[in-house]
């Protein structure tokens, strides 16, 4: 199963500013001084091999949108979690790959907060006749949320004018739902207005998409349910928006979690890989890189038997399981 991250930022899209770019260029120029980089190829190789991730890359700024490509998927069928602003480049990807052929896009919605639906009005395949979009979710108000954001005065194109056939499909939480390419199990999570995580399983591989989820540290029974939900997953895509200190103090009840709790839950569930996700928009690339380093160190300090690989998701990342 291939996982593609189109949007990894929490709450609000962000972009590098001119100052970010200028400062980064200055650091790169200093690092490259005296290296004889007189061709683009040499410079690219230097960037790839010698520069650290925050200098040669960016974690990106689109809000939540994660594509899953199971091995048995039909060639014209797509699966994606959430429709944050990352849905715009995901839509371009679908259009380019389809080259005019109609597509079926299956969307799984964690919840309908703005940052998770804001990409849909800019999702190109919704404006193409012949496409079929099936939006799955556990919330009763799923359809209402999508229609409302395209009502005047918020957006010029009403939902009713979309050319694609759009269908809303209710999923019952806690039940295994079977698709030809995989099974998916939604799990209720603690978040304002409720959110749902999804566990996808295909050919012995499992991915848990769990964003916008606060874990109450004094609720042992809720913790046990989450450990069972994550159990032995190959990849857990985890809301690590805040530091633990913020998550349990000034930002308690804001509905998000931390890198520390991500490591603890994944270790308890014997997960193989943890992807830090839903990055705080106030964090720049250096800050996210620092959080990643510290999270890896925490995993090392607290490891018992199985190593948990820790990564920080970024826009454009692909993971093959």
């Amino acid at each position, binding site marked *: 199963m291939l996982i593609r991250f189109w949007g990894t930022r929490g709450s609000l899209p962000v972009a590098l500013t001119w100052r970010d770019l200028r400062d980064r260029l200055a650091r790169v120029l200093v690092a490259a001084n005296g290296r004889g980089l007189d061709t683009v190829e040499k410079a690219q190789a230097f960037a790839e091999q010698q520069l650290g991730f925050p200098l040669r890359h960016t974690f990106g700024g689109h809000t939540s949108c994660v594509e899953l490509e199971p091995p048995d998927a039909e060639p014209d069928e797509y699966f994606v979690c959430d429709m944050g602003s990352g849905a715009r480049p995901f839509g371009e990807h679908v259009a380019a790959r389809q080259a005019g052929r109609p597509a079926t896009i299956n969307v799984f919605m964690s919840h309908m907060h703005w940052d998770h639906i804001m990409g849909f009005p800019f999702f190109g395949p919704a404006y193409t006749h012949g496409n079929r979009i099936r939006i799955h979710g556990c919330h009763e108000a799923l359809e209402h949320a999508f229609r409302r954001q395209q009502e005047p005065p918020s957006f010029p194109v009403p939902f009713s004018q979309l050319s694609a056939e759009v269908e809303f499909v209710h999923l019952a939480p806690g039940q295994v739902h079977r698709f030809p390419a995989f099974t998916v199990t939604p799990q209720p999570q603690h978040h304002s207005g409720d959110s749902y995580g999804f566990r996808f399983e295909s050919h012995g591989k499992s991915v848990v998409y769990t964003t916008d989820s606060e874990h109450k*540290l*004094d609720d*042992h029974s809720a*913790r046990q349910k989450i450990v069972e939900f994550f159990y032995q997953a190959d990849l857990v895509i985890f809301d690590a928006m805040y*530091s*633990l*200190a*913020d998550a*349990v*103090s000034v930002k308690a009840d804001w509905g998000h979690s*931390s*890198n*520390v*709790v991500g490591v*603890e839950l994944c270790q308890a569930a014997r997960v193989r890989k943890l992807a830090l996700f839903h990055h705080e928009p106030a964090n720049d690339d250096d800050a996210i890189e620092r959080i990643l380093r*510290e*999270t890896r*160190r*925490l995993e090392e*300090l*607290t490891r018992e038997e199985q190593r948990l690989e820790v990564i920080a998701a970024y826009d454009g990342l692909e993971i093959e399981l």
Partner: protein
Amino acid sequence: MRISQRRYADTLVLSPVGRLDHDSCDAFSEALKPLLEEARGGHPIVLDLSALEYVSSAGLRLLMLAGKQARSQGGRIVIAAMRPLVAEIFQISRFTMLFEIHPGVREALTAASPQAAAAFDRG
């Protein structure tokens, strides 16, 4: 979980022993409850963490709540003598932002109460 205690003038020094994790945090919370009463009337508490082997997120949350309760009672909690592993967990979780932390009990007592530091020096 065991919490040993000793007193220096107006300051109580508490030393949790072992691991403060999801399994032990309820017992720790119960043991801490009566001891926090000491913070009433502005009396400081020093948490000597030299015998704490590990602290989980649930344990850190309990420490945060204890600090909050102490402040609401007019007192405060300062932390001292963390082992390197616990100090790293404090740093990674940003709990260093929530607590006043000192390298040793003597330094913590000096910051918390001059009388307590003097009593500590007298042995």
